[in-house]
């Protein structure tokens, strides 16, 4: 019960929803850059939302699945092929033993996607999670990105898994958004380290995603954000989406592999929902921030839960359909 990696692609990692509960030990949460897509992919297959899948970034993965399974590519459409035939994202496919799954590359709606398998990926739990944290060689497949020749185990799927073949997630439920949508943010814990002009720049101007992006953070290019105090603070906690502004005035949005603590002033914190949207963007994409209230930020999360429930009901109905 496994798949073999023929080509690993640009960056392919095993991720579940993250290693929560150990930040006080200095252990990074990691987990998926777009958790909403991973959760939906798992729901489509009848998996647990926290089951581990492959986080695929950009392009190039090529695997051979040794056992029959259903698979879904949830997230950006990365031109998947199954045994040579084009296969859609957000669609469950039955794959017979020996099937080859390849990921061609970007088609324009984002850069990360989750290849979910019915039953999920079976790697050892490390501190309660299967997520890979490469910097500390923690979790996932031997603590690292996949390489050619790796043999990755799969869990046994739950009963009736096969009946999910062909299920499509309706476009209106998918958590994908245009790559120029405004990014929602709330004022950060050190907003008083910035001048009014600096704050206006942050919420008013257009930034672009720089070339310096990874799972730890997204550095943005654009106008300098003016500070009125030193950007160096006595280290405190860094939440997902925290926007740090070092002395050079260029914002860095902290993502899944962020360190647990840091010493730069945080002007804002991107909402959980929007951080996953930013994670789909590529160097050169525009980024504009919009100041939102806590209620609005949380409303997106409630809305997603409703979509997830709708999808789960659809899955149940789909499986019990007349054939």
């Amino acid at each position: 019960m496994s798949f073999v990696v023929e080509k690993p692609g640009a960056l392919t990692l095993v991720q579940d929803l993250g290693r929560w509960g150990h930040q006080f030990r200095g252990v990074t949460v990691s987990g998926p850059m777009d958790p909403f897509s991973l959760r939906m992919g798992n729901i489509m297959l009848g998996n647990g939302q926290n089951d581990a899948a492959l986080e695929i970034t950009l392009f190039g993965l090529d695997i051979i699945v040794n056992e029959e399974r259903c698979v879904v590519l949830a997230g950006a459409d990365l031109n998947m092929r199954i045994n040579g035939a084009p296969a859609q994202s957000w669609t469950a496919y039955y794959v017979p033993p020996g099937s080859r799954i390849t990921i061609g590359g970007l088609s324009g709606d984002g850069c990360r996607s989750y290849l979910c398998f019915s039953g999920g990926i079976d790697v050892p739990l490390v501190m309660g999670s299967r997520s890979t944290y490469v910097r500390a060689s923690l979790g996932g497949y031997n603590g690292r990105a996949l390489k050619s020749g790796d043999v990755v185990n799969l869990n046994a799927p739950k009963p009736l898994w096969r009946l999910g073949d062909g299920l499509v997630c309706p476009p209106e439920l998918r958590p994908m958004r245009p790559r120029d949508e405004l990014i929602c943010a709330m004022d950060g814990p050190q907003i008083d380290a910035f001048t009014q002009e600096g704050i206006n720049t942050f919420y008013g101007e257009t930034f672009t995603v720089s070339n310096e992006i990874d799972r730890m953070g997204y550095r943005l290019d654009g106008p300098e954000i003016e500070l009125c105090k030193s950007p160096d603070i006595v280290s405190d906690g860094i939440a997902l989406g925290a926007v740090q502004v070092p002395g050079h005035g260029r914002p860095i949005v902290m993502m899944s592999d962020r360190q647990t603590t840091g010493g730069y002033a945080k002007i804002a914190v991107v909402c959980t929902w929007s951080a996953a949207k930013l994670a789909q963007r590529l160097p050169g994409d525009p980024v504009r921030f919009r100041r939102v209230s806590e209620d609005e930020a949380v409303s997106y999360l409630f809305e997603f839960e409703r979509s997830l429930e709708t999808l789960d009901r659809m899955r149940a109905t789909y499986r019990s359909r007349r054939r």
Partner: protein
Amino acid sequence: MYRTPRFLGSGDSCLVVEFSDSIDMEANLRLQSLRRELSKTHIPGVLEYVPTYRSLAVYFNPLSISRAELERLIDRTMDSLDPSARGVRRVLVMPVAYGGEFGPDMKNVSEHTGMSEEEIVRRHTGLDYYCYMLGFTPGFSYLGGMDESLATPRLRNPRLLIPAGSVGIAGKQTGAYSIDSPGGWQLIGRTPLRLFDPSDSENPTLIDSGDWIRFRSISSDEYSVIQKEVSSGKYSPVRVTEEVEGLCPSSSKNQAR
């Protein structure tokens, strides 16, 4: 330290309770006692508490609990803290082999401070260190309280790989590398203890913030013995618990500030 801690929003899923804007042991002791008290109550929707030098970050699921409700519960807990309660000081004794192959930068520190190696070891082991927080890498503790006469600037050329357990000095700070990592600290010794062990799902880290560390000088022979015991799982670290008066500063004292 502030008279009353401040609540700072940090996005839709994190609330920061800030006690001070500087490194302040009283503030840290207070936030540690708040953290202990909150951990006992198991607030539904709270994912974890992350103490730092001067604040406590509370991560929560906003679908389960609102920020306003969380603030109310934290306020209530803060009011209930007994400032005159006798505290407990947990000390971890950390054996360290100083100098030689374990402390390749001992010479630098000796040159910079004008002290002999023996004197450096005497001063480094002579005080207990308070662990304010963990961060940087898994299991890395930020310690306070080094004898300032030992202060030595970082290496001009950082090393690409420093073995886990290395004990070093960087400016006025001292600490131990918890995992193999690059770094620029002046290395004066190494502990055979495993500061971060992800395979130990119960206690992957030896030190918790709020603990104290007492370095103990050991020979290289003792280093090998302890190292063997650690790898076979037979070593249990020496921990000392001391009762102390008034770990939490009294509230009346705060009012006077």
